[in-house]
């Protein structure tokens, strides 16, 4: 079995021991069965078990292993090892803009606070029918590209507006989720949802730089969803 050595340059920070973060150079042997960055990280963890990172499903569904890979946010489990040029170390850092708990693990409290602020659930005050609330296939299609978000945080932590105002700006992930419920024909709180977002900080900190679209490991487009929210606000106002 062919093996090759991968060089890593990893952000390390243990607040109990380190005064400030530092970058660790470390190499690890991978073989041909190691396909994704996460595979290499798992081997790395076997070599130095003090390295801390989150992971769970290892197939791009749980969103735990989001990190900054060579300067771009992504999921370690969806990043092919073959994309890294040989001879250059792979630089891993935690998601930018959030407080670091340890090494590659960030505190996502602020991110989820924003997510909860948009009431991420269906609001419908009519008594539920016996089986389920039905939608036409066309109405259901509106939710494509919105419901697939796994809340990994790659988009919001790639957004400068979220870096500067994480306490006030909902961020691309939260706004994508907000539009997911605004677009849902079964939801009855559209106007209240728009009221909740009509704010210079909560929605209008988005200046359409599209870092979120670039970062999303699922290929979703939060900028498009934000544009649709703005269009609905215009439609409501004039």
């Amino acid at each position, binding site marked *: 079995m062919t093996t090759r050595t991968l060089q890593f340059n990893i952000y390390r920070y243990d607040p109990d021991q380190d005064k400030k973060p530092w970058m660790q150079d470390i190499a690890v042997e991978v073989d041909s069965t190691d396909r994704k960055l996460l595979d290499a990280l798992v081997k790395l963890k076997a070599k130095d078990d003090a390295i801390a990172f989150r992971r769970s499903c290892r197939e791009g569904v749980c969103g735990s292993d989001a990190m900054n890979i060579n300067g771009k946010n992504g999921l370690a489990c969806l990043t092919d090892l073959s994309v890294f040029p040989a001879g250059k170390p792979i630089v891993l850092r935690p998601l930018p803009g959030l407080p670091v708990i340890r090494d590659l693990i960030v505190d996502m409290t602020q991110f989820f606070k924003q997510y909860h602020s948009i009431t991420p659930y269906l609001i419908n005050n009519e008594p539920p029918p016996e089986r389920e609330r039905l939608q036409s296939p066309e109405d259901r299609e509106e939710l494509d590209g919105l419901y697939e978000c796994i809340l990994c945080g790659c988009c919001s932590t790639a957004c400068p507006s979220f870096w500067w*105002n994480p306490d*006030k700006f909902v961020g691309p992930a939260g706004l994508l989720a907000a539009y997911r419920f605004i677009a849902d024909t079964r939801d009855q709180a559209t106007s209240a949802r728009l009221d909740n977002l009509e704010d*210079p900080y909560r929605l*209008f900190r988005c200046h359409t730089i599209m870092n979120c679209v670039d970062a999303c490991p699922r290929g979703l487009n939060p900028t498009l969803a934000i544009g649709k929210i*703005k269009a609905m606000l215009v439609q409501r106002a004039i």
Partner: protein
Amino acid sequence: MLNRVVVGAHYGLKDWLAQRITALVMMLYTLFIAVAVLGGVHDFESWRGLMAHGFVRFFSFLFIVSLCWHAWIGVRDIWMDYIKPVGIRLALHSLTALALVGYAGWAIQVIWRL
């Protein structure tokens, strides 16, 4: 004062829309001026001739107002992003707005004098 995060000012849509509309006005005016320059407007007399038209005065006025309004929203956004203390931000907002109003008046006076 309690140090709590307060949001929900319920404005922003008008500014966002105004920024787009003023951008459109500026783009059309820039094209208009580019065509005029390519069409032979180059010395003081020809500029004066161009600016003597009622339509050009109207359009120039619209351009300057658009520029200042657009700049107001853009610069205010920069203060909102980077300046956290409320007092300093309010002072910068006021100074920006006042400066832009002054500039607009000055620019219109210069252009209409031609």
